[in-house]
């Protein structure tokens, strides 16, 4: 994709093809000889895991679509039939439903990795933004997918989320009716959501292509955050990272299989085993776990429009992060101060997730009457989510810009190899800089 190619066609057929459609050259340059920093740790294996998960979702999804009926009278039953009667339907449906969770787990690890190692900074801003686009499309896909089984949570989740758009002044209600194709979430809505649920993963696949293209121009970042300065700093992708990624994928699949085979419903909501009933709302509406932090931000604000703005703002913020962070040092290894705020931020996201899962008036510490401040009980989840939502935005909009200007970073190594070679404990006599080049 960039730089010069090291591929040499070996057989006659490869030579013939190379002058017509250089597809083997392309594959070789991308996943075989691609020069990759030699110090990547396991946090770098999640890209490969994500690609695999996208593939699994597409394959299992297309099979589900062969048995699924997108009609309000049949959708619920058809999914139950897939689970009970279709041969191996339980397996494929379980892979798909739990696959969505694993997909999000991987994407969150991947995103926090980028935050920590500053991988969104120049020259990787476009790469980062494409990643944010993929994340948005994933949220859309998962939302549409969750509506399809047409359980109580599917239905009322769809009602609540589509009503968010009604908060837009003037045109909001017209847009909501347009989205519904009626006066409420109903059959037309289910039909179009199925169509979009089928479409979006292929759009994701397209953006993933751009994402990898944008990765291969500057190349990978690495845990030190310093640029690759010589060929000694890199190893070819294959076999070094195909094997490392392969190992990580195997471990990840064990976790995934544990859910599919032993805890197939652990991440789902019991209310979704009840067929959708527009006349009764479940006592407690919650989205899937991976969207809880945003739901908490939405509910933190007493005003409908502001809640919606902040919720979308939380995602929009990610897009501008490359320009909010003023520090030239990429890796937080060398930024001890902001590192603390980063860990606090990670904790903050988990707290927001907890808040999203609880009713606003639930007590955070049960049994304690709580700090009554005027009308507000500070021992309630609304208040915890208010504080946590505030920190979410402060971290990006205040701490990130300020920290780059005020902090004193630790000395950054000269090159990727330097910290390894200069460390007395890790340099046994006779060690060479590039063991892979020997023999």
């Amino acid at each position, binding site marked *: 994709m960039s730089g010069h190619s090291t591929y040499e066609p070996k057989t006659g057929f490869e030579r013939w093809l190379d002058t017509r459609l250089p597809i083997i050259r392309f594959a070789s340059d991308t996943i075989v000889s691609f020069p990759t920093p030699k110090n990547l740790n396991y946090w770098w294996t999640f890209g490969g895991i994500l690609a695999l998960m996208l593939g699994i979702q597409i394959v299992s999804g297309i099979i589900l679509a062969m048995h699924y009926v997108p009609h309000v009278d049949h959708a619920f039953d058809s999914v139950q039939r897939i689970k009970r009667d279709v041969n191996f339907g339980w397996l494929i449906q379980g892979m798909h439903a739990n696959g969505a969770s694993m997909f999000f787990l991987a994407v969150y690890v991947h995103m926090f990795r980028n935050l920590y190692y500053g991988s969104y900074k120049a020259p990787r801003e476009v790469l980062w933004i494409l990643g944010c686009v993929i994340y948005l499309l994933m949220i859309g896909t998962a939302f549409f997918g969750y509506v399809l089984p047409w359980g109580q949570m599917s239905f*009322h989740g769809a*009602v*609540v*989320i*589509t*009503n*968010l758009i*009604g908060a837009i002044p003037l045109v909001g209600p017209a847009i909501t*009716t*347009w*989205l*519904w*194709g*009626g*006066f*409420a*979430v*109903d059959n*037309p809505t289910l039909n*179009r959501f199925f169509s979009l649920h089928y479409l979006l993963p292929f759009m994701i696949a397209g953006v993933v292509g751009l994402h990898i293209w944008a990765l291969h121009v500057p190349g990978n970042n690495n845990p030190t955050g310093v640029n690759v300065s010589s060929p000694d700093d890199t190893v070819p992708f294959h076999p070094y990272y195909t094997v490392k990624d392969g190992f990580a994928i195997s471990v990840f699949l064990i976790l995934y299989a544990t859910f599919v085979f032993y805890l197939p419903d652990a991440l789902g909501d019991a209310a979704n085993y009840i067929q959708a009933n*527009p*006349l*009764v*709302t*479940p*006592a*407690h*509406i919650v989205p899937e776990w991976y969207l809880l932090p945003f739901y908490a931000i939405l*509910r933190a*604000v*007493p*005003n*409908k429009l502001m*809640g919606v703005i902040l919720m979308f703002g939380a995602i929009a913020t990610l897009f501008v992060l490359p320009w909010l962070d003023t520090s030239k040092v990429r890796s937080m290894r060398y930024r001890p101060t902001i590192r603390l705020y980063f860990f606090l931020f990670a904790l903050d996201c988990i707290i927001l997730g907890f808040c999203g899962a609880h*009713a*606003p*008036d639930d007590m955070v510490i049960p049994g304690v009457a709580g700090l009554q401040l005027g009308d507000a009980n500070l021992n309630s989840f609304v208040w915890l989510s208010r504080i946590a939502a505030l920190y979410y935005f402060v971290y990006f909009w205040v701490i990130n810009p300020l920290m780059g200007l005020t902090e004193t970073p630790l000395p950054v190594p000269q090159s990727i190899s330097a910290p390894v070679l200069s460390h007395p404990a890790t340099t046994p006599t006779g060690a060479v800089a590039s063991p892979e080049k020997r023999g």
Partner: protein
Amino acid sequence: MADTVVGANPDPHVTGDDPDRRDFIHIAAGVAALGLVGGLAWPFIDQMNPAGDTLALASIEFDLSKVEPGQQVVVKWRGKPLFVRNRTPKEIQEAIQGDHADLRDPATDESRHKPGKANWLVLVGTCTHLGCVPTFGGGEYGGWFCPCHGSVYDTSGRIRKGPAPKNLEVPTYAFLSDTKVKIG
């Protein structure tokens, strides 16, 4: 087109900065293409709006004799729940008292029922926050309580507490007889 050096361009059509016939054709073709795309965009957008048969199903009739005082019946109308509530004198009294409270979406109780039919309240049963179905009789005003994010409505269906911005909507309806209403 910017090329004005005399003799530099042998093409006799390119004479200078003045728009000529070729520019005209380019612009006309561009406008026509844009018009076509724009004109086709609307059908492709509008197809998602409620279809003719969906609109045709939009009104229903309801027999009020099924609802005892102090009760509510939930009917499905346009895919949404509709509350038909037969209010007790006490509930009506509380609703009228509420007229003088500090209301978020000010409306008198009188404006929310048909003249002379103070006991009958017909409301769209979706919370004006994000569309959940509020539960009958809940909340400190004895009207409805929305379990989703805690909006509280009074016995007139007016928003009194919580995140919802508006009162429960009153649909267009009319009494066909003393015991029959037509909604929509």
